[in-house]
């Protein structure tokens, strides 16, 4: 099973980059994402075809970006896009390393970052997808993948 790499990587990367303990949020309550959010999107393409997204509500983004960078970053600044893009890049790198260790090869795209209100990925119907909600002292974090060619969880 490979999609399990994603939540493992989220927990590991936020601990390493932001010194933050992140845990799965069983509530699955997405209300925190209804207002301003920042979302980074990266593709992993090779033996898997995944679109990875990392989605943070404004309060979480500000706190986590400040922990990552070591200084305050206003939500509306260019630096916010940079910081969240870089966090997503490190997350995707960690996922790629986990896939590599299972013999599954994939390359990464550069991250794209979207910021706004009610940001949603509008995806082709029928594509396998999975998303995970996390909680940490900074607030909520949402991560997910949408698979292209390969069904989520299939062996490499």
């Amino acid at each position, binding site marked *: 099973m490979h999609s399990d790499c994603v939540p493992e990587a989220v927990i590991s990367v936020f601990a390493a980059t932001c010194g933050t303990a992140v845990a799965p949020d069983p509530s699955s309550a997405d209300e925190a994402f209804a207002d301003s959010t920042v979302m980074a999107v990266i593709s992993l393409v090779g033996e898997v075809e995944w679109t990875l997204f990392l989605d943070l509500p404004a309060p979480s983004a500000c706190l986590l970006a400040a922990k990552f960078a070591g200084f305050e970053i206003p939500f509306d600044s260019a630096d916010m896009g*940079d910081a969240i893009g870089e966090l997503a890049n490190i997350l995707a790198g960690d996922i*790629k390393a986990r896939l590599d260790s299972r013999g599954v090869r994939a390359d990464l795209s550069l991250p794209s970052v979207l910021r706004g209100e009610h940001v949603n990925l509008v995806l082709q119907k029928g594509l396998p997808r999975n998303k995970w909600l996390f909680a940490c002292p900074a607030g909520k974090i949402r991560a997910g993948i949408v698979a292209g060619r390969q069904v989520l969880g299939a062996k490499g």
Partner: protein
Amino acid sequence: MEIRALVVDDSAIMRKLVMRSLVESKMALFLFTEAKDGQDAVSQFDVENTDMIFVDWNMPNMTGIEMVHEIRARQKRHVPIVMITTESTMARVEEALAAGGVDSYVIKPFTPDVVRQKVEPLLDKMAEAKKAGGSFFSKLAGKLS
């Protein structure tokens, strides 16, 4: 020791983090020039005055490794290059290390201590080379060219 460092990353935040880690490591007095991608780095590379380069791998316009090839072709003396990378490009960075294009690497996320561990040996070699009249890196550059 004064080191004129070129810091290359498409992320301004990462450039700041690299520069801050180097300053906090207190290994040397670093004077920074920033470049936003490989192309920008090549145009800002000062053959006479750039002492060390810190470069990201994954960048638009010109990747880190493409920049390394360009710099190696232009340099008059060996300029140590430290690749800043995620786990995802480690295999390719190791190839670049083995081929002599890259002198060291730092994996993101990093701390000033990790940066110190990777960079201090390079600074020691530079200091030795200065004492010996620039022999170490001149010889290394000769071998690589």
